[in-house]
């Protein structure tokens, strides 16, 4: 990992968390659908990052979010689940030795691969997040509905950001 990659990722971390904490935290459609754009940071971390480092980064990201959301542990667990699904999906769908792209962004991997990857990761993250927040199964349909609507919203914002900033190949 060279220093440029590290700097780019630190910059991305700060910008995405800033947007999430100070802008999107106050945003929701009828309390049902809330976007969590900061997951994009974990989604586009470089391919060759060691698993343990990925988990540590996800843990710290979640903990920071939790501090600002007053929900200690909820976002942390959700981010860890996201990191796990990321590792699983990449190892199933790609051959680890033959990866020649630096990071799994939309511009590098194409729309089909990236959108499937994003849907699965975001869904894992949101399921853990909303069920830990509700912390019960009595309002199952409500929580599930909230999860699915938020997945749609988050996916929309993630793809939007990716289309704006990462569409290098087609440009």
């Amino acid at each position, binding site marked *: 990992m060279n220093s440029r990659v590290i700097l780019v990722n630190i910059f991305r971390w700060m910008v995405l968390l800033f947007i999430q904490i100070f802008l999107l935290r106050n945003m929701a459609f009828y*309390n049902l659908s809330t976007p969590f754009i900061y997951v994009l940071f974990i989604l586009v971390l470089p391919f060759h990052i060691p698993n343990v480092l990925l988990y540590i980064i996800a843990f710290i990201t979640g903990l920071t979010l939790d501090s*600002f959301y007053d929900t*200690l542990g909820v976002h942390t667990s959700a981010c860890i689940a996201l990191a796990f699904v990321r590792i699983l999906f990449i190892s199933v769908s790609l051959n680890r030795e033959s990866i020649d792209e630096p990071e799994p962004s939309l511009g590098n991997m194409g729309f089909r691969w990236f959108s499937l990857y994003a849907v699965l990761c975001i869904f894992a993250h949101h399921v853990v997040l909303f069920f830990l927040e509700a912390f019960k199964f009595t309002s199952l349909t409500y929580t599930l509905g909230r999860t699915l609507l938020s997945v749609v919203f988050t996916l929309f914002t993630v793809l939007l950001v990716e289309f704006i900033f990462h569409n290098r190949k087609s440009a």
Partner: protein
Amino acid sequence: MRNLWIFLSRYNAFFFFIIFFAAGIILTIRNNVYQRSVTFGSTNEIVGTAYKRLNVIKRYLNLVQVNDSLAAENAALKTQLLGIASIDSTQITKVKDTINHQQYTLIAAKVFKNSVTLTNNILTINKGIKDGIAKDMAVISLGKGVVGFVQNVSENFATIRPLLNQETAISVVLKKDNAFGSLVWGDNNFDYRKAYVKEIPNHYKVKVGDTIITSGSGGFPRGIEVGRVTNTNLSTGDSFMTLEITLFNNFSTLQFVYVVKDKFAEEVKSLQPEVKNEQ
């Protein structure tokens, strides 16, 4: 031993997942059982200061509404003052208890972090121990209505557990016939304009439009108007009824609150140490 090592390193993603996820869950559970952790919450000085800075901008955007509500409150106070001035003092027969005279003192505070979208919402205000705020003090809003209870205090900040939190219950009465009830946000309620009053005995006749006020116990002064009954037909199946009410207070635009300092809070609390749920 070597095989075990190979096994572990081969599936390292899964084992790391178990370790980290367990850590996350433990954090969550601890956090749910105990009150919010002071270290990572918004009572934290760093996080609190960041929110405070950001709030300067937000305050400008909301100046119009704040102005309006201040003007409305001013008008209400002036009306009250006129009422007092016009009372013929020779006619007053009921003498107010002078010991109780200053039972409640209000401490004004600014809300700089607010949420209405979560299951358990938390507010943060810019007053703390330094300003005389202590845990479990009642909090009311600028205009009409109740807000909640102080949950955590640090030197300069305090968090408030508002009504929009599953753990909050406030003792209220029906203004018309003093039927006692317990005001909660409700289990599957996510509308910040609605709340429920539980445990009112079935024999009271309640109509849509009746006003709910605070009962005077639990730190709130008696007679603060909380909301209006909008639905009386919720069946519970037991001898108590549940009322749906619309709150006068709009939690999403909360800017200033008053923390109620009750002179006798300690004394009352020491008399009833076993009462825990009904605050």
